[in-house]
């Protein structure tokens, strides 16, 4: 299979690299259209075609291509898309979909084996799998995601990917010891799946390794009993939107590494993903959770060349100081100014600055006792801190 992105020539032979496999399934040939009602055919699991998974998968693949900075540089992205008609209104997605195979069983099988072969013998490298579509979860590791030709015949589950089999098939000392899996799948109706889950076997990899599994290989997936993964046409699923927000900065860890770089780790991603998914689902009036399965050893997923930017929110007390106060934000050593003479247009007031530790001066002008200026206040800009940080001026 020809990868959608192939940079293997840019890296020395044998150098640790990252190989990614991204699959997004919105269109289902043998299911009713998204606007139609489910059929009475029990083998359809009460499903209709979807409208958002392929968008999310493409956006993730695009982020990998354009922004991803792992420890082992990106070498390939294998991409398979089965977009819905409405998703093809996105010109960029339509162009990509025209270049890559549809997410049907035979093509996905070939892609899985190809991806596995590329990863063998690269223990210092990394592997990424992102798969999105209709699906079901048996455990925190075992998930089935249905492919475009699902229900082509009575052995319906033959037309699915068994993520648990893939996860176990990627174990062993010859495989990348840093792996990451994203499963963005809405859950099939429990009673239907409970009755018919044995109809066929999902695609996977040969499970050969039986020794100690030393990988860091987390699996991030959406979970809600009996719930569907939410999505917004044109913007992708809630999970994919949240994931992109996390990767753009909100999942940055609280620490810089030895080189002073900020990074996203497996744990910081989980915490941020939970919050972002909850927030986006809440905006739709729904609830959706994120759970992590697989092997949770700590790993660095991505590092930022520059510290990501986050909002810093400063609140003034008493509120009467709002119109009189000017803010100067300095680096922690009070040597370089980041913000100068900023008025508080509202209280509290937010500015966007790079992650870090700062020193804040708040000047009351004109002097208005009992309000008093404050200098050298330490201000933290890191994720997961409660907002606002309050400055008392009287």
């Amino acid at each position, binding site marked *: 299979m020809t990868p959608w992105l192939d940079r293997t020539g840019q890296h020395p032979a044998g150098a640790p690299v990252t190989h990614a496999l991204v699959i997004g399934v919105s269109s289902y040939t043998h299911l009713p259209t998204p606007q139609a009602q489910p059929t009475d055919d029990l083998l359809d699991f009460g499903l209709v075609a979807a409208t958002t998974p392929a968008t999310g998968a493409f956006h993730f693949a695009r982020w990998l291509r354009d922004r991803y900075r792992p420890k082992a540089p990106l070498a390939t992205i294998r991409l398979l898309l089965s977009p819905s008609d409405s998703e093809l209104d996105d010109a960029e997605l339509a162009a990509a979909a025209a270049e890559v195979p549809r997410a049907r069983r035979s093509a996905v099988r070939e892609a899985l084996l190809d991806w596995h072969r590329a990863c063998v013998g690269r223990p210092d490298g990394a592997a990424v799998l992102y798969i999105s579509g209709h699906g079901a979860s048996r455990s925190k590791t075992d998930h089935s995601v249905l492919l475009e030709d699902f229900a082509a015949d009575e052995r319906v589950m033959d037309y699915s990917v068994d993520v648990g089999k893939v996860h176990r098939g990627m174990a062993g000392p010859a495989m990348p010891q840093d792996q990451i899996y994203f499963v963005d799948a809405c859950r099939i109706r429990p009673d239907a799946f409970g009755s018919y889950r*044995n109809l066929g076997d999902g695609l996977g990899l040969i499970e*050969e390794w039986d020794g100690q599994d030393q990988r860091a290989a987390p699996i991030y997936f959406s979970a809600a009993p009996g719930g569907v993964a939410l999505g917004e046409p044109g913007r992708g699923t809630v999970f994919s939107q949240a994931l992109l927000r996390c990767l753009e900065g909100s999942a940055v860890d609280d620490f810089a590494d030895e080189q002073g770089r900020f990074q996203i780790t497996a744990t910081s991603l989980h915490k941020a993903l939970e919050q972002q998914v909850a927030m986006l689902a809440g905006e739709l009036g729904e609830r959706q959770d994120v759970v992590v399965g697989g092997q949770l050893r700590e790993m660095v997923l991505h590092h930022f060349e520059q510290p990501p930017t986050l909002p810093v929110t400063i609140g003034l007390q008493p509120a009467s100081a709002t119109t009189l106060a000017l803010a100067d934000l300095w680096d922690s050593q009070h040597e370089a100014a980041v913000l100068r003479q900023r008025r508080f247009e509202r209280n509290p007031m937010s500015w966007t600055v790079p992650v870090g530790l700062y020193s804040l001066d708040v000047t009351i002008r004109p002097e208005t006792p009992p309000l008093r200026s404050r200098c050298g206040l330490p201000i933290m800009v890191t994720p997961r801190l409660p907002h606002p940080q309050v400055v008392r001026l009287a």
Partner: protein
Amino acid sequence: MSATLGEASRVRITTGSVMLPVEVRNHQLRLVDRGVSGLALQLAPGTYVVSAPLPDGRQVARAVQVHAAADQTVDLGAELDALVWTARHPSDLAVPAPGGEPGTVPPERALQFLRLRSLDKAVADQSPVVEEVRRWSGGRSVLVRVPDRGVYFARITRAGQTPLHVALPAGGGDACLLTVEEHAGAPRVAAVPAHERVRYVSEYLAGGDAGHAALLLAGGEAGAAHDTTAGPVGAAVAAYVRLRLGRLDAEPTGTEDLAVRADWFPDGAVVAGEELAMRGDHDRAAAWFLEAGDRGLPVFTDGFSILVARLRQYQANQRIRGRLAPAQVARIRMLSARLERWSPFVDLGALTLTVTAPELVQPVESREIPLRPEPEQHAIPIAPLIRRLARAANDAVHDRPAPVSSEWASSEAGLRCVHREAGPDQVEIIIEWTRPVAEPSAVHVRVTTAGTTVEYLVILTLEASGRWAGDLLIRGAGESVATVVLGLRATASLEADDVEAVRRSVNVTARAGRNAWRAVARARPHGDPVRQAIVTALQH
């Protein structure tokens, strides 16, 4: 630490009265050190960020200025107190107050306890004791003590909704905390061990933060893993944290001892098996996984997930399968198939096993009833009594206001159900079965009134109209009654396990129904427990 002895200051970090993980970063936000509350370290002069991450993903932090040779204590207690510290699922819950008497809580919900006898059987059990109901942070938590050694579930029901079953992380005298969140009218319940250290470790584990859970386990004067008051549940939590992080110590960690000591506890067998599996000793691991299935469902979701995943692996991996005995492979296949029937109904994000299904041990089958649509749609709420009183007060036309009644009928389902007021705080439930009945039968119903949910058997009698019907007279109905029809049972199929249901059903059966129960008793042999239960109830 990066300080000369002459300049450095000793900084001690505390977090009020709670033990939490703490971290220290320098002005470049590089990690200087991490540990648990009480951590003391030597720091060079400068600005540092001292923080404590919370289980819900937030953190409290303070920038601290360290001056040369100036020891200090940094207490983040004030920042913690300012936060609303929420558990994963805080909520309101209708429960019996301590002592078992109904509490002053909304009657829409009911709490029962079930004991899991095996993967096939769960029975109502009154032995768990509600010791305290506490309101905190806008929600409520319930302290439940489980005196017996066994696997227990809390069953939370609400009229017209699928029940929620939550495994209790307690047993053999331990206690646990239940909190419930209300979301879109449906309950989400979380359960954590009540032992303080184990509780916090569990909260971090539930939030996917195994790293900080491990810090808490290792820190302090005595880590939770070695705290003998933590019990088998605490030991299992510690094991799950270690297993999540893939930490295998050079020496065995005592998980097999736990599995042997707590021979009622499925999770003990799961963690023993998982540790062996991670070391590559799949033969022994398989034995423990099968033992876990014999003990019942794991209490922790991680345990359920590990069991399902490993059993699938052992069926698919030829190398491993080849080392197991054929009988073991067959048992693995059966147990795997059995457990996967729960998978679609399990909340994989919950700490303890949480199953949304009408019946805990038959999640698939209990959804397959002979009536359509789904049983929850048969719930017929009666107009609240308070509305009846309000209407009567304004009704000057009638000498006596007509009793409130509601009716639901479906020709497709072959059912007609009526709720009718039958006196102060009493409701008559009438069931008509419009399809032919080939043998003496009873309609299995679940009735939810103020604070309780009870199942009854409504014995059917043939009326002059040619229809089969039965009725119950429910006392203490409170403001609302909801009935769910679960199916039709031939009375010949009643067994010893049905004795309690038969007894209470006869007690509330009126008129012709009591004669029908007499006929059922006469048709059963002497000494039969169902016959005896009917006879005893008819005498009262």
